[in-house]
């Protein structure tokens, strides 16, 4: 089980004292948080990509490379990389470069972005969001798996005899997660390629998250990459804790009430009841987090949002210290004890190198002996007859 944190990198006023960090302070805070993540033994640090205020995360690979230089073990990822508005050739180059510099401690999560005005800044149209995600990733996948690419599509100038530089480290591309909250096409896409599927989880009720994950798992099996319970699933989570639960709730309340996404809506208590949010003691965080398995099955990656809504850096670092002491060891123990032997761990560069050596890389759309492959054969022979 990989346990880590993901940040949207929002620059938000602290509602308790009215101060707002500068972009510079916020960017440096992200680095400090990543270093703390490494210090307490987390596996993953992921950062978003946004091109509009109040976010200060327009260039994730720059940030991640800087963090990579200051860490040893942390796996660096994104939440999310915009596959719609970023040229897939640039994604292949930037993340390929990062992968080399970080000695393979890199993967990425692709997302579409839901802010309409951002798309035209990059020459795109949000109404084409899903087709862009489909076509751009199809190209990215080819760039990372074929040495010479000839390609043409709807959304980008054609490529003739294009060879990516640098080629992926050890001929193994960074692992790709596809993130989506409510778009079945993206779950289908993740399943088709045998990639991972990540559900943000934190703003949604568990039944809905479970529905999307079920869909991905069923289709993963359909494409023959493994049984449904062997599909690679990641989830978001969110907590604020103090040793004393009442103290945690008192302290977090103003941040919740004014938070950018869910503030000024439901009460914190209702939100805790209906979503993964835990505000309370370390024990409550443990119990809630372990309950995600009930609707997501045995999954591979758990990322927490800890640094949003104007929480000061000092508080965030305290949260992580407490998490490292009280929560992380228990979660590791419980996840390991619960996971059946046939359910795989989250992919790492080392495991992907091993998989490639064993000739077990997933085939997009499934091999001929997969349910999808047999359907294709049947359709073909049916057409011939």
């Amino acid at each position, binding site marked *: 089980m990989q346990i880590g944190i993901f940040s949207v990198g929002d620059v938000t006023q602290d509602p308790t004292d009215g101060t707002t960090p500068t972009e510079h302070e916020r960017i440096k805070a992200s680095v400090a948080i990543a270093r703390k993540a490494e210090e307490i033994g987390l596996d993953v640090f992921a950062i978003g990509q946004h091109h509009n205020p109040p976010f200060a995360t327009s260039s994730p690979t720059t940030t991640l490379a800087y963090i990579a230089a200051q860490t040893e073990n942390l796996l660096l990822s994104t939440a999310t990389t915009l596959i719609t508005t970023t040229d897939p050739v640039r994604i292949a180059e930037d993340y390929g470069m990062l992968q080399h510099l970080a000695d393979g401690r890199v993967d990425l999560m692709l997302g579409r972005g839901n802010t309409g005005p951002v798309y035209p800044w990059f020459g795109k149209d949000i109404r084409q969001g*899903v*087709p862009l995600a*489909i*076509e751009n990733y*199809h190209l990215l996948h080819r760039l990372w798996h074929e040495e010479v690419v000839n390609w043409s599509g*709807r959304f980008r100038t054609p490529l003739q005899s294009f060879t990516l530089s640098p080629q992926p480290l050890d001929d193994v591309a960074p692992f790709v997660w596809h993130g989506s909250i409510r778009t*079945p*096409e993206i*779950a*289908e*896409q993740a*399943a*088709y390629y045998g990639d991972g599927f990540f559900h943000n989880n934190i*703003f*949604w*009720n568990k*039944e*809905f998250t*479970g*529905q*999307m994950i*079920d*869909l991905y798992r*069923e*289709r993963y099996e359909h494409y023959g990459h493994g049984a449904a319970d062997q599909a690679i699933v990641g989830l978001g989570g969110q907590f604020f804790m103090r040793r004393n639960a009442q103290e945690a709730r008192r302290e977090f309340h103003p941040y919740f009430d004014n938070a950018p996404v*869910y503030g*000024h*809506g*439901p009460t914190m208590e*209702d*939100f805790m009841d*209906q979503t993964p949010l835990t505000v309370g003691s370390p024990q409550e965080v443990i119990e809630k987090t372990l309950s995600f398995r009930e*609707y997501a099955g045995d999954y591979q990656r758990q990322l927490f949002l800890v640094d949003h809504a104007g929480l000061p850096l000092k508080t965030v670092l305290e949260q992580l210290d407490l998490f490292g002491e009280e929560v992380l060891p228990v979660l590791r123990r419980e996840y390991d004890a619960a996971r059946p032997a046939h359910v795989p761990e989250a992919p790492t560069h080392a495991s992907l190198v091993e998989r490639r050596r064993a000739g077990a890389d997933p085939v997009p*759309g499934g091999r001929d002996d997969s349910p999808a492959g047999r359907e294709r054969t049947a359709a073909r022979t049916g057409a011939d007859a």
Partner: protein
Amino acid sequence: MTAAPTIAVVTAGLSQPSSTALLADRLVEAARAALRAAGAEPRVVRIDLRGLAHGIADHLTMGFPSGELARSLDALREADAIVAVTPTFKAGYSGLFKSFWDLVPDGEFDGVPALLAATGGTARHSLMIDTALRPLFAYLKADAVPTGVFAATDDFGGADPDGDDSLQRRIDRAAGELAARVLWRAVGSPTTSPAGVTARGSALAVDESSRGRHDESPWREHDDSSRSRHDESSHGNAPDHDAAPKPPRRPSRPEGLPPLRVTPFERLLQG
């Protein structure tokens, strides 16, 4: 005859007793009578928005429904006909009424018969049905019946000045139009395929345009677990529903949201 169309009645009255709710009662009774005359025994699902006001606000801010609101949206999605009744506020439908309809996904009511009705302090607002309600239901692609029913305070005043109880006549006329559409749809019209191919109750439905609707019954299937406590009808009246096949696996479809539909990836790639 075991056919049992479901009528969902959405009322947005705020006071209790509410003249909007009273009008809804009369419309439902008239629709029930018209359907019975044709041999169909309707089930009625009542959705009173006053009790859902907090849930509606939470859905608007959080992005997903929960609790009673989620069950009501499920019941509405399954309905064969809609009766929508709102009070007139500031020359239009109430904000609560509109907020509720803002939460239904597009395309969910394509071709579903709808009876539009409203109450108001004065008959001078009666065109509100045509200027406000009708465009909303046109957007939803519902099949709104030609007769809208507006009841002003005068209509509830007892003695009808013309002595002909014209409110009841309008109610009967609109209910008759609604019933005719429900019956017509049940016979099967090639132009209506409201929900596409979806395995109700399952998390997953594969969208294959070559396949027809999965259910043979002219009425949509009902998932009894999603029935709200507003359901007035007895399940004993509809044995065919109880015998409906259970969902294939993982009956974890969340309340208040439509089932997910999958387009096979090869088709997505083709654009």
